[in-house]
């Protein structure tokens, strides 16, 4: 039954590339988890012990370099307002728990914002400073700093009310077969996680460690950079980092990961 339901969802979603327009039919349970709560595993569980140790020991975790850069930026006044993040928020620890609730719908902006989007918007509206481009070192550093404050706290995004259509769009994207290889996110990360692909075990594609230091990148990067790499992996044209499509997908991933602890900065292969 579950499989038939998924096939139907695949067909429906696949028929439309306008994913944001592909809202769920009334009564569709858009919050159904792809992986049962008890089976959810962080990407950390798929790592070699050495890489795991590199993440856990903050004195050697390379991602902490970005967190520390974020602390410097946090205190630096910027823009016409001559305000720093610290001017309004005080210590970064005041934002403990915030990252666990993102992406979140902003009623005033009528937009779904992820943490990067929230920081970008803060910079624009409150600091009146030059925008921080997506994937810039400064935005990665500030995002890593804020997410790090919630390290160990379980992901817990809101999926009801105004977030619903975004969740549905993200979910549709997750189940849509894409690219020249015609593979959906779900086919690897729901249906085949734990199996081997060459020397690698397929992970569940969980988003709980971003920004993440990836050995492959040799640097710290955002969830959207990682998602873009997945799109390229199946030979699909990737959506832009920070695009509404990827923020919606991020919301679905966060809902699907509910309960997993934030690990920022995670270390991945």
């Amino acid at each position, binding site marked *: 039954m579950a499989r038939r339901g998924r096939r139907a969802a695949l067909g429906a979603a696949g028929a439309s590339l306008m994913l944001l327009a592909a809202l769920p039919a009334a009564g569709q349970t858009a919050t159904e988890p792809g992986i049962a709560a008890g089976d959810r595993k962080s990407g950390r569980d798929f790592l070699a012990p050495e890489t795991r140790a590199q993440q856990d020991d903050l*004195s*050697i975790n*390379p991602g902490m*370099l970005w967190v*520390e*850069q974020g602390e410097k930026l946090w205190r630096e006044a910027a823009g016409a307002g001559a305000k720093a993040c610290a001017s309004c928020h005080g210590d970064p620890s005041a934002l403990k728990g915030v990252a666990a609730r993102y992406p979140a719908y902003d009623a005033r902006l009528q937009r779904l914002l992820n943490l990067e989007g929230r920081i970008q918007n803060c910079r624009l509206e409150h600091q009146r400073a030059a925008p921080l481009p997506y994937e810039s070192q400064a935005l990665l550093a500030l995002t890593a700093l804020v997410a790090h404050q919630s390290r160990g706290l379980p992901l817990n995004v809101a999926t009801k009310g105004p977030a619903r259509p975004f969740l549905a769009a993200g979910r549709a994207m997750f189940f849509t077969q894409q690219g020249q290889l015609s593979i959906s996110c779900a086919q690897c990360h729901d249906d085949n996680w734990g199996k081997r692909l060459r020397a690698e075990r397929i992970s569940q594609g969980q988003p709980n460690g971003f920004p993440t230091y990836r050995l492959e990148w*040799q*640097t710290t990067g955002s969830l959207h950079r990682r998602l873009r790499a997945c799109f390229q992996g199946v030979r699909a044209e990737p959506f832009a980092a920070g695009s509404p499509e990827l923020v919606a997908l991020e919301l679905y991933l966060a809902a699907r990961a509910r309960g997993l602890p934030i690990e920022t900065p995670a270390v991945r292969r």
Partner: protein
Amino acid sequence: MPATRIVLPARARKGEVVEIKTIITHPMETGYRRDHVGLAIARDIITRFTCTYAGEEVFRMDLFTGVAANPFVGFTTLATETGEVVFEWTDQHGTVTREQRRLVVV
């Protein structure tokens, strides 16, 4: 300017072995890679890291292309006296990145 991170205790007992860890942002470009249009990317690496403590060199590292990007190193030093611990990274062009921390020895 590269960013650096230094992990060492603020104070130590005299005679204690102090663990120091440092990391610096740097691509450690090997010179063996090519860009998207097939052009060789020039080698660009940090070649030397030194740590002096109260004016005396206590650790040095020579780096080659085989050191991973964002070079990380962990080493130890004996806590001898209260003083400045100075870290210097020198790249192949001679550019030096310098940081210092005070170690209080009780």
